[in-house]
């Protein structure tokens, strides 16, 4: 008597579909990732336990590099245009507003701003530029910048960000704070990279008990 033959099933699974899914996801992630634009100003930011993500829209950012040089970055292009025109009028700089609008950041005294804008984009590197002069308390140019930025925003409040390098000395930071204070900008945010809350501290206990952090 012949035994009933069981149909032999192959144990190998067709991987094609899975491969498709994997690469579809991969291409999705690659395309949606915003790559960090190569930074003209090298800044290593300090760590903090702050958990709020830094705003990526509607911000005005002041950057302090490791030598204490100060740069200004504005996100909104229309604001930049208004600002460029206003600066041209009030300070008689004779800058090219189009170039001003396109510039990613500003880092020169008012007197040299025109020459700064004439530099090609790839030559505007933080370590070669003079930065906005802030250290001299009598001629803290950032105060003027902030005043003009505020008037360009016409009462709307952008987020003010401060991105400082670990090694920047305190006087530069103080000068920036002074410029903010003089324009009644009393709230600003410092850009940091995240760090875990140390175990056993009061903040940690608060987080454990489920209390929300007020930020």
């Amino acid at each position: 008597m012949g035994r009933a033959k069981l149909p032999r099933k192959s144990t190998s699974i067709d991987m094609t579909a899975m491969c498709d899914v994997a690469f579809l996801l991969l291409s999705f992630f690659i395309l949606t990732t915003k790559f960090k634009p190569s930074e003209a100003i090298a800044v290593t930011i300090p760590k903090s336990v702050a958990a709020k993500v830094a705003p990526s829209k509607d911000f005005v950012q002041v950057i302090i590099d490791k030598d204490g040089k100060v740069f200004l970055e504005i996100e909104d292009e229309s604001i930049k245009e208004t600002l460029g025109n206003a600066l041209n009028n009030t300070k008689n700089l004779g800058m090219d507003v189009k170039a001003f609008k396109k510039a990613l950041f500003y880092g020169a005294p008012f007197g040299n701003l025109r020459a700064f804008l004439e530099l090609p984009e790839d030559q505007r590197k933080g370590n070669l530029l003079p930065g906005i002069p802030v250290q001299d308390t009598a001629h803290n140019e950032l105060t003027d910048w902030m005043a003009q930025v505020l008037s360009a925003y016409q009462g709307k409040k952008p987020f003010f960000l401060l991105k400082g390098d670990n090694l920047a000395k305190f006087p530069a930071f103080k000068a920036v704070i002074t410029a903010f204070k003089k324009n009644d900008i009393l709230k600003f945010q410092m850009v940091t990279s995240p760090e875990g809350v140390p175990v056993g501290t009061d903040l940690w206990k608060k987080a454990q008990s489920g209390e929300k952090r007020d930020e």
Partner: protein
Amino acid sequence: MAEMDTSGGGHKKGPGVKKSKKLSTRVDLTPMVDLGFLLITFFIFTTTMSQATAMKLILPKDADKPEDQNKAKQSGVITILLGKDNHVFYYEGELDNTASNFKSSSFHDIREVLINKKNSVKELKDFVVILKPSDFCTYRNVVDILDEMTINVCTRYALVDISDVETQLVKKSDEMAAAQGN
């Protein structure tokens, strides 16, 4: 399926014709799937890592008149000074003439000091931390000490300009620490 029919219609060849070997075109895609998922994991991790966070700082408005200024009880005040090379100094209450209560600390130990002070103050609302960064400290030091305020839930703190006497003290202590280090 990643497979192609190569049997050529299935019609039989004559007896003299040699059968050509049938090669399977099926490819094992498992390693490719592995690679795909590995890359996905890599991308996911790198994207979440680069997200910067923001730490909020609210500045007090400068009070011109002394009577407008906030007052703090001496017993609940601790002043922290930041010096060169990550040095931290502190004193409780008011600095006395001989600077005998001027103590040296570090970023590692200052948490202990703050916790002790916080626990020893009778009423929590009297606990005030005054931060005085000197001109020699770095931006990182300031962010670290502000972070320490968040970590220890110190709700009342102020960033204040350093006085000349304190600058001298910090300078002297910095030099002393540097001499000891050598």
